């Protein structure tokens, strides 16, 4: 039991390290050029967004259309801090301050609205994120209004993106695999039964919402630092929808699904760019076709299993006696 968990952990660490080293090498050899790196940055940010929204919508079952709002809080907070303090510590503080601010607002927003159900909640979260956007639009003296903030110091690079992306994925998937995470899932499955089993459903909805907002804040901060500029338009309704598309495409309740979908969509959009005028038409048709043939998403609610690797591992490793 303990052994299995440990060997799983070891395999995970080896896989991550290998991914990191390979990509780092490819960047060094210029196989992954600047352009591909930018695409990778977008993919990483989308992974963070999708995984965190998946916690709220996929695992806890709370339909949120306001993820872009929390992302924008992280982005503005981090941008304002790094503009005043353009140093690496400034950047790190900025990212975490952004995340904490987003989580804070997430909590404040979550408490009253999370007693709403289904589509009513969706609309309330949509409204919240629109209000956040309108506030940013009108706080000219701080946010520079519609023109947004420019020349935000760029600290993110592949290494930072990798750290934050894997960090997010690990923390959220660890959470899901804990009793608290299962409590969230039970709220999705049947709120009444969950309450009858001693689970305070409101508490777990708010927790999921706060964690989700926290990581959306991180994604926003990374966005600001990667692309050097932000403005309120970036964080509109359609951004929230884009994230939702990734989550549903990957599979509600599947973290690996979200990751795969983010990567896949990143690649697809890159290829579709070649069809300037009709790329959106192709994209929409693709979306419809995928949903018709795979309505549960690419992964359903399953995860890519590590067992393949464990098997490999046990073949390679000389068999020791079990403790």
């Amino acid at each position, binding site marked *: *039991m*303990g052994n299995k*968990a440990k060997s799983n952990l070891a395999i995970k660490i080896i896989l991550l390290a290998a991914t990191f080293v390979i990509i780092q090498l490819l960047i060094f050899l210029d196989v992954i050029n600047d352009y591909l790196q930018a695409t990778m940055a977008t993919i990483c940010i989308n992974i963070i967004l999708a995984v965190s929204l998946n916690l709220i919508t996929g695992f806890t079952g709370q339909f949120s259309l306001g993820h872009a709002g929390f992302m924008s809080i992280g982005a503005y907070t981090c941008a304002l801090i790094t503009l005043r303090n353009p140093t690496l510590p400034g950047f790190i503080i900025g990212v975490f301050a952004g995340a904490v601010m987003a989580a804070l607002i997430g909590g404040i927003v979550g408490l009253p609205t999370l007693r709403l159900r289904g589509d009513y909640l969706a609309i309330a979260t949509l409204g919240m994120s629109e209000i956040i956007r309108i506030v940013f639009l009108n706080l000219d003296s701080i946010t520079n209004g519609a023109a947004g903030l420019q020349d935000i110091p760029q600290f993110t690079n592949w290494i930072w993106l990798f750290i934050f992306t894997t960090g997010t994925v690990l*923390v959220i998937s*660890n*959470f899901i*695999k*804990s*009793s*608290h*995470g*299962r*409590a969230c*899932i*039970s709220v999705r*499955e*049947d709120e*009444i*039964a*969950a*309450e*009858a*089993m*001693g*689970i*305070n*459903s409101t508490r777990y909805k708010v*927790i999921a919402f706060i964690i989700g907002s926290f990581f959306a804040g991180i994604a926003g901060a990374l966005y600001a630092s990667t692309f050097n500029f932000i403005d309120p338009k970036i964080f509109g309704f359609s951004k929230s929808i884009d994230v939702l598309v990734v989550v549903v495409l990957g599979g509600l309740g599947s973290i690996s699904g979200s990751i795969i979908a983010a990567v896949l969509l990143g690649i697809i959009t890159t290829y579709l760019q070649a069809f300037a005028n009709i790329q959106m038409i192709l994209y929409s048709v693709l979306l419809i076709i995928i949903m018709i043939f795979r309505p549960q998403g690419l992964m359903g*609610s399953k995860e890519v299993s590590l067992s393949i690797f464990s098997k490999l591992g046990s073949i390679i490793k000389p068999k020791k006696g079990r403790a």
Partner: protein
Amino acid sequence: MALLSVNKLTKSFGGLTAVLNVNMEINQGELVGLIGPNGAGKTTVFNLITGMYEPTSGTITLDSNGIKKEIQGLKPYTICNIGLARTFQNIRLFKDLTVLDNVRIAMHKNVKYGLFSSFFHLPSHSREEALLTRKSLELLEILKLDHKKDELARNLPYGEQRHLEIARALATNPVLLLLDEPAAGMNPAETAQLTELISWIRKEFNLTILLIEHDMSLVMKICERIYVLDYGMVIAEGTPEEIKNNKRVIEAYLGEDMSNAGD
């Protein structure tokens, strides 16, 4: 002093009074039946006791381990955490989760590690998770579901779903267990097995049980005391023998043929 006392409990839905001035006492360790015609208000009484509904009037008092507490109107999860667990008449499992997870979720209230530990899977997490999984598996074994632990709840046949509901309720570590028609949808053979199981569980877990059931073979066999509800009111209370021969109960509920069932 009784473990659970229900005092002048009343619940109206608009113009309809589903439960009226119900008084009930359940003593520590008892197995009590709650029967009555369809629509008599039995499930509503359960819903009131477990906090699903707020009573229109009346009190519900739980006296466990020397602590006396009025629980009417509290939230369901609070009541569960105080030590009351229930099953549902219309099975309400977490259908898309595995059998094991259904039980592990119900064990949540015993978990002590915090959120932080859950993010990073600190040792406290691993330790408690291992313990919790072991206990869940033990429960599943008792209810003969251990071989299906990785099956989705929705794929279990009806009878096993009822078993799982009971396992899940037990996992919350209750002092008082409320069962709502546990034998519904089972054939007589299965019902007989269930009857055994319930009395075994009661001893093993040192439980007090209140159960609703229409299957008299089960009720008459294991209940020590029975309350009969009709039109929201208690019309009779007594031992199975007394209830079986109570004219009002026969008239309203049992019918002539049934009054000699179960023996």
